[in-house]
């Protein structure tokens, strides 16, 4: 048997690896000149890497942890020791711990409401949630407007949603917000570093996972092969890329929904994988490099939250014993306006902000921007944003094979949707569908 896999991110490479292990002939077609999809490494200093894409994991990410172990990679703990900096309505201030200096009861009320709607969702089949139609029609922006009156909670909500799922509240339905938070383990788990989804990073960068998987697959992975069409005749499938035609008895399309819909399927899909309401995950990642983690000398953790942007939050992502890396997250609507700036203006906006936020620090010696919104072959990050109508229309079909075409990618996993863990689980599921085991 032979299978063509479209996309060499974690999902596609996992599917290909599983299929190859069962003696199936696989070919992986990748549009880019690199593997890894929404994981990507930047070498910020010789031998020292920053994660420009997906980076974090926690103990519940069991498939990812076992893959890391199998590949002989290690993890490093994220560090969150010291005080935080906040600029949330008013000038920057230093605060103990990670919690913003906003009305705690108002924020607690917001989290109570989020927890309630998160617990109400049917994680395995969100479209079957009680009241699904109403929750699928309503945007998260409309929801907060109706449910949460306190200005501090309203100020914090877009920051929280941006951090959790790279979404502006107007971009996602309440059903998708609730599903995403549920799928990732609930708001506490998704939000937490220690004991949560940001507990560790992959030593050397998360892109190493895909690089090592691809190395084992060898010449079965073809870079620079963007796929344009998938054609089925009888039991044969023909995959048309810019570099030729590849045949197989099954195909795994391991792409985000918006990208999967750029492929022409013959016969056509009964239901498209995305709609006009489906948005690109709005994330731009900025990495600031310092000779060492200088903020630690000032008792700071590197963690900051700012409502005035462009970096809505910063995290210490420094490799142990190496340079200092502050990763800045620009998400939601802020990411859209930041991505529209020209390079020098964007850099100046970041420098102006870091000088205000961390006046103790010199300007960084390195500056790297990764814009996932504009990226042709990802079309957003962390994941597709399901807008009003999407879960009820496309949701029930996300994993349904189209003849010999099977679907993978983190958006096809109801467990840990949007995360590396979801991608790996989806790749395994697609491989099991094909082999029947």
């Amino acid at each position, binding site marked *: 048997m032979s299978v063509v896999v479209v996309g060499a991110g974690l999902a596609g490479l996992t599917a290909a690896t599983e299929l190859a292990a069962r003696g199936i002939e696989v070919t992986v077609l990748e549009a880019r000149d690199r593997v890894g999809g929404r994981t990507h490494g930047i070498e910020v200093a010789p031998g020292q890497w920053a994660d420009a894409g997906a980076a974090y994991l926690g103990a519940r990410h069991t498939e990812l942890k076992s893959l890391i172990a199998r590949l002989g990679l290690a993890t490093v703990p994220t560090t969150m020791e010291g005080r935080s900096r906040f600029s949330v309505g008013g000038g920057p201030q230093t605060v103990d711990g*990670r*919690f913003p200096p906003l009305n*705690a009861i108002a*924020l607690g009320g917001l*989290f109570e409401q989020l927890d309630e709607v998160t617990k109400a969702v049917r994680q395995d089949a969100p479209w079957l949630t009680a009241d699904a139609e109403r929750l699928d029609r309503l945007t998260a922006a409309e929801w907060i407007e109706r449910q949460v009156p306190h200005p501090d909670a309203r100020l914090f909500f877009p920051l929280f949603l941006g951090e959790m799922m790279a979404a502006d509240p107007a971009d996602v339905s309440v059903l998708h917000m609730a599903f995403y938070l549920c799928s990732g383990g609930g*708001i506490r788990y998704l*939000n937490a570093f220690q*004991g949560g989804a940001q507990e560790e990073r992959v030593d050397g960068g998360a892109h190493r996972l895909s690089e090592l998987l691809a190395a084992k697959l060898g010449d079965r992975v073809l870079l620079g092969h963007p796929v344009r069409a998938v054609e089925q005749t009888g039991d044969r499938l023909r995959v048309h890329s810019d570099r030729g035609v590849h045949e197989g008895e099954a195909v795994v399309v391991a792409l985000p929904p918006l990208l999967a819909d750029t492929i022409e399927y013959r016969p056509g899909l009964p239901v498209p994988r995305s709609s006009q309401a489906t948005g690109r995950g709005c994330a731009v990642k900025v990495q600031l490099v310092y000779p060492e983690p200088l903020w630690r000398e000032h008792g700071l953790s590197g963690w900051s939250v700012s409502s005035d942007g462009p970096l809505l939050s910063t995290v210490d992502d420094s490799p142990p014993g190496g340079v200092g890396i502050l990763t800045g997250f620009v998400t939601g609507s802020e990411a859209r306006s930041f991505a529209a700036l020209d390079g020098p203006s964007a850099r100046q906006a970041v420098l102006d902000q870091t000088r205000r936020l961390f006046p103790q620090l010199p300007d960084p010696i390195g500056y790297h921007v990764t814009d996932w919104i504009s990226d042709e072959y990802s079309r957003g990050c962390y994941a597709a944003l399901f807008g009003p109508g999407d879960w009820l229309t496309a949701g029930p079909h996300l994993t349904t094979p189209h003849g010999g075409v099977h679907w993978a990618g983190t958006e096809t996993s109801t467990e840990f949707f949007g995360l590396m863990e979801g991608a790996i689980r989806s790749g395994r599921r697609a491989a099991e569908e094909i082999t029947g085991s």
Partner: protein
Amino acid sequence: MSTDGTVDGVVGIFRRVLESDRVQPDSDFFELGGDSLLATRVLSAIAREFGPELTLADIIDAPSPLALAKLIEGVAA
């Protein structure tokens, strides 16, 4: 409400927020896995159910249902 009633109420809030049946009147919120996000939910629930608006500093200083109940009664008195 009696102090016992308040303690029971706070135990109930802890159990719901921590998703744990192990909460006792003298349990430490943070030792049972509580963090600042969950602590704000407790503060919100206390304000809703009992009235007093406590702070994060209060729950750090008085992390058990027993201690928080005393605080609530003190504020309410």
